[in-house]
Each structure stands twice: as structure tokens, then as C-alpha cells.
């Protein structure tokens, strides 16, 4: 006797019941895969944002505790030119960008606002941000003139100051020795990262402008961009070992938003997964119990003929297994089709809290994710069928046959 064939015949005999079971499993799987795919893509883009804004590795001076100083630390990294040059020979490194953080007040006429500024390498800075920092000026080349100091403003800050391209602004800052300093800069462009809290106060100047204003060639951090992000850990260790007086951080250590969102989503998704899996478990337990009840006479006959109980259960579990394979295949195809359709349709999500703009939903399609989730679901189905087959053992043969 061919076990799988018999199981298949039994499944086909039970058309409607099987179809409803199949749909429950497939729908559950589709929900898990699509929402999981959305979650994975969110994680990925948050990682990407962190890597693009901070770099894969970040070199900071280790004398004052950098974490206490927050992100706008003093200009404390002095030997950065040497470090930067030594990194240029490393194949794994794509870019090394210096960033000097400083703060003060920017004014235009009678309007003024507090700013958080960065002195950056103008040639490279805007390239690394990619789609996450949108600029509204032609920046190639920036600076447009080597004679005059130039500034890029966050869109909201420009609005506060009522400044447009070409306007002259004054930056007021206090140097580390307590002296106050000023610089006049020309507004050449705007940029926007979508977080009002940042766009309200941010501005960028070239490194030479910030050095002149602050009276120091030191920078706050050196951001290292790698060819492959997988190499960050190895390079972090070798850099940390070879350079004295600095701390080398990885992007993960800077990814507070990523970690927060991930732990939030993990929990939401976890609760959802538990609910879906419970529903599937209960539905399967129910349908298999019903099948066993309907087929109790058949079970009794098998038992009367001397079939060992585990062999009888095996038939039902095999049936459940075949159904779950079919259902997960269907679920995966559905999830694939839906995810693909959503990705193509470029449906926009509303702006998340603290952001001014929405973003297109993207659903990750990862075969690894599909396979693992399906296996978990198949496991649940088998567990449910095991539980219900235990009832088959309690069938009274004589009564079921008469």
C-alpha cells in the first residue's frame, strides 16, 4: 500500500474541509510573510540611513568621554589628516569624510536662529547620503567660488531666516577658548532630511570655513565608508589596534533609531505572529478532530485489523503534512504576488511621527525568510495534528464499527 497515495485520496475525498484548512494556513502564511517583509525592509532602510549619515566606522578622539558630549562634541580629533591618508591605501575603504561639529547663532538682517553646523568635505559629503538627504541646489562643484565662504541650510532653517540662494548670512560662534567669532557666508543651497527637528537647525559649510570660524583644524569625527558593510567589524578591530588615542565605533553603535524601531517592530510582529500561529493551530486542531470524528469507523476498522495506533496517527499526520505543504506553497506564491504588486505600485506610507514626509512601502522578498516561516507553520500544523490524533486513540472500536 502506498501511504502518500492513500493520504492524497483521503484528502481529495474531503474537498471542502481541505480547501478551508488550506486557505486558513495559506492566509496566515501570507500575512506573516508580507508583514515580515515590510518589517525587514524597514530595518534595512534604517540601517542604510545610519550607515549613510554616520559612515560604516566612526573615528573619534577618546580623551573626553564622547558619549557624554552627545553628538555635538568639541573639536577634539587632531591627527585626522594622518589617519585619513593611511586609510586611502586600504582597498576596503571607499571614502573617508571629516566632520567638524560646531554650534552658534545664524542671522540675516534682524532674523536669527540657533544652528548646529557641520564643517564637511564639500566634494564628497552629499554623495554618501544618497536618497536620504535631498538637496535643492546644483552642488557640483561646491564650493562654487574659492574666494567666498559658502553655506548650505536645512530647508526649515532657511524658512525661519527667510533666506534664499545668494543671500549673505552671518554665523556667530564661541571658540573653545571663550572668544566669540563671526563669519559671513553666502547661501548657495538647501537640503532636507525629512526630520523637522534637524531641518530646523542644521547647516553645512566647508571644512576650511568652519576651521577659520572656530580657529581650529581639529574635527569631531572621521566617517569611514566601506565597499562592503560586512567588513566593518574586522576593520574596526584592526583600526582600533593600530591607531592610538582614538575610539573606533561601528555604525551599529550609532544606530539608536534603528535599535529602537527594531525592538518595537520585533515586539509588534512577535505578538502578531503568535496570534496568527495560534489561530492556525486552533483551526487545524478543529478540522483534524472533525476529520477523525467523521472517519472513526475507518479508524476502528484499521485498529480491528491490528494496525498499531502510531501507524493510524501517521496517516492523519501525513495528510496534514501534505495539506500544509500545498498551503504553504500557495501562501508563498500569494505573498510573493502581493509583495511584488505593492512594490510596483509604490504605495506611500504616511509620514511617521517626527518626520515631514511619507515613504514608499517596500516589501522585502527573501527566500530564506519565506522558507523559515513556512517551516515554522508546517511544524505548527504537525503539532496540531499530533494533538488531535491523540483523540483517535480513545475511539471505542466495537461501538464505532456497529
Amino acid at each position, binding site marked *: *500500500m502506498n501511504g502518500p497515495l*492513500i493520504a492524497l485520496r483521503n484528502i481529495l475525498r474531503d474537498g471542502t474541509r481541505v480547501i478551508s484548512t488550506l486557505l486558513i494556513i495559506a492566509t496566515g502564511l501570507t500575512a506573516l510573510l508580507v508583514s515580515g517583509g515590510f518589517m525587514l525592509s524597514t530595518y534595512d532602510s534604517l540601517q542604510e540611513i545610519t550607515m549613510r549619515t554616520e559612515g560604516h566606522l566612526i573615528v573619534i578622539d577618546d580623551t573626553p568621554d564622547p558619549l557624554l558630549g552627545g553628538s555635538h562634541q568639541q573639536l577634539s580629533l587632531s591627527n585626522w589628516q594622518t589617519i585619513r591618508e593611511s586609510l586611502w591605501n586600504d582597498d576596503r575603504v571607499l571614502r573617508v569624510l571629516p566632520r567638524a561639529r560646531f554650534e552658534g547663532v545664524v542671522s540675516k538682517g534682524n532674523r536669527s536662529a540657533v544652528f548646529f553646523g557641520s564643517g564637511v568635505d564639500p566634494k564628497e559629503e552629499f554623495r554618501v547620503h544618497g536618497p536620504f538627504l535631498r538637496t535643492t541646489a546644483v552642488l557640483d562643484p561646491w564650493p562654487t567660488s574659492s574666494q567666498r565662504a559658502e553655506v548650505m541650510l536645512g530647508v526649515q532653517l532657511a524658512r525661519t531666516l527667510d533666506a534664499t540662494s545668494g543671500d549673505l548670512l552671518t554665523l556667530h560662534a564661541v571658540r573653545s577658548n571663550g572668544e566669540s567669532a563671526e563669519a559671513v557666508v553666502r547661501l548657495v543651497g538647501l537640503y532636507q532630511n525629512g526630520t523637522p527637528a534637524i531641518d530646523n537647525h542644521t547647516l553645512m559649510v566647508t571644512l576650511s570655513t568652519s576651521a577659520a570660524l572656530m580657529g581650529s583644524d581639529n574635527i569631531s569625527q572621521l566617517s569611514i565608508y566601506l565597499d562592503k558593510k560586512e567588513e566593518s567589524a574586522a576593520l574596526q578591530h584592526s583600526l582600533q589596534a593600530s591607531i592610538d588615542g582614538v575610539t573606533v565605533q561601528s555604525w551599529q553603535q550609532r544606530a539608536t533609531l534603528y535599535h529602537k524601531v527594531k525592538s518595537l517592530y520585533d515586539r509588534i510582529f512577535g505578538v502578531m505572529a503568535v496570534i496568527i500561529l495560534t489561530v492556525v493551530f486552533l483551526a487545524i486542531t478543529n478540522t483534524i478532530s472533525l476529520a477523525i470524528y467523521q472517519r472513526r*469507523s475507518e479508524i476502528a476498522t484499521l485498529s*480491528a*485489523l*491490528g*494496525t498499531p495506533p502510531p501507524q493510524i496517527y501517521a496517516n492523519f499526520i501525513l495528510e496534514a503534512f501534505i495539506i500544509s505543504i500545498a498551503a504553504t506553497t500557495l501562501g508563498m506564491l500569494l505573498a510573493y504576488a502581493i509583495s511584488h504588486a505593492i512594490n510596483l505600485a509604490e504605495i506611500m506610507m504616511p509620514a511617521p511621527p517626527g518626520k515631514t514626509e511619507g515613504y514608499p512601502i517596500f516589501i522585502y522578498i527573501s527566500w530564506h525568510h519565506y522558507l523559515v516561516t513556512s517551516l515554522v507553520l508546517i511544524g505548527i500544523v504537525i503539532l496540531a495534528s499530533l494533538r488531535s490524533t491523540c483523540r483517535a486513540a480513545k475511539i471505542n*472500536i*466495537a461501538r464505532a464499527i456497529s
Partner: protein
Amino acid sequence: MTTRLSLNAISKTFGKADNQTVVLRDISFSLDAGEFLAIEGPSGSGKSTLLNICGLIDHATHGDYYLNGTPVSQLSNRGRCACRRRKIGFIFQRHQLIPAMTVYDNIAYPLQLNNVKAKQIKHDVAQLLTTMGLEHRRNHHPYQLSGGERQRVGIARALIKRPQLVIADEPSASLDHTHAQAGLQLMRELNQTYGASFLIASHDPLVINHCDRKLTLLHGFLADPV
């Protein structure tokens, strides 16, 4: 002659306390190896119940039951299952074929359960299909058969493994004279070749006359105990 089966003061009660039905009372008899024994009695007299106990698919409330001299009433479920698989062939009052299996698979099933070699199974089943006039139904499913054909498949399934004890509950109920004869003929052959014993519940004079001996069950009592 050895005793195949022996019942000692078997009784069977269904239900609990205030809702009890006593179906069998103090039944004692024995069946020799190679013997054909008929059990007759009106409907509801407890024939099926008695057969179920003898076939180890039901428990007696009281009394002892020996199969080949071994007490089996106290056997574990597992032991009873193994005993049914190896030693007992059961012809059910309502054929009880497995719907998802073909005629061939239904008949072959007891042999597969006993791990008989595939080649042997093929040979034996083919032979039995011919004897029972069922070759043309080989690959049909039970729902495609007539009541009589189903019953014949049920008989073939019980006899295929050449059991020591065959228990048959109304085996001729849905058979015409010719097929009933053929079934009985087959049972007789099995009986003569292998010394199989038969315990048959029936109303059918054809069957009862074919048997070596008959017992009559009346309201749970044996009318003329042996």
C-alpha cells in the same frame, strides 16, 4: 484435538449504574482447532457483542477468555492489537472496507501489516481475487462496488492472511446463494488446509447447516451450552 478458543463465564454489561444493559450472561464454550461453530439467535441477542469479545475488539465485563490456551482477557492494548493482527481474521457485519483503498489494497492490507514480502502479497491477492470472482474489480474503490461485492472483499480481507481464528458476523447477509456458497467453500478450504477455526454468527440456514456445530444465543444466555 487442541482447543483454539475457550470462554469461561463471560458476561458483558453496557452502561453505568442506573442505566445498565446486560447483554451477555455467563457465557462459557470452547472452539476446537479446525472447527466451524455457528452462533445463531434473534436480532439483539448479543451475537455481535460476543464476537467482538472473541475477536479482541471489545472487553468482557467479567470472565476469562483463552486463545490457544493463553489467557488474553488481561492483555494490554498493544498485545491485543498484535494478536488481532497475527491470529484473527474478522469479517464484519457491515463489510467495513477502507474507502481510500482499492479492492486490491484492501485485501492486501493485512499481509502488509504482517510484513509479508511484496511478491508473495501480489501472488496471494491475485489468487484470492480469482477465487472470489473479483479480478475485474481489482482497482475499483469500495463505493464502486455492490453490497455483495463489498462483502466478498471483506471476506477476502479476513482470509488472506490465513488466520488461526476467523470471526464472521453475518458473512452471507448481502450475498446471493452462489456467492455465499463460494465464500463457504473458501472457508472450508482454509479450514482443511491450515486448520483454521471459524466462529460465525448467522441467521442463514445455508451457513448454519454448513457448520459443524451451532450455539443459540437468547437474551444473552446460551440456550444449550456445550
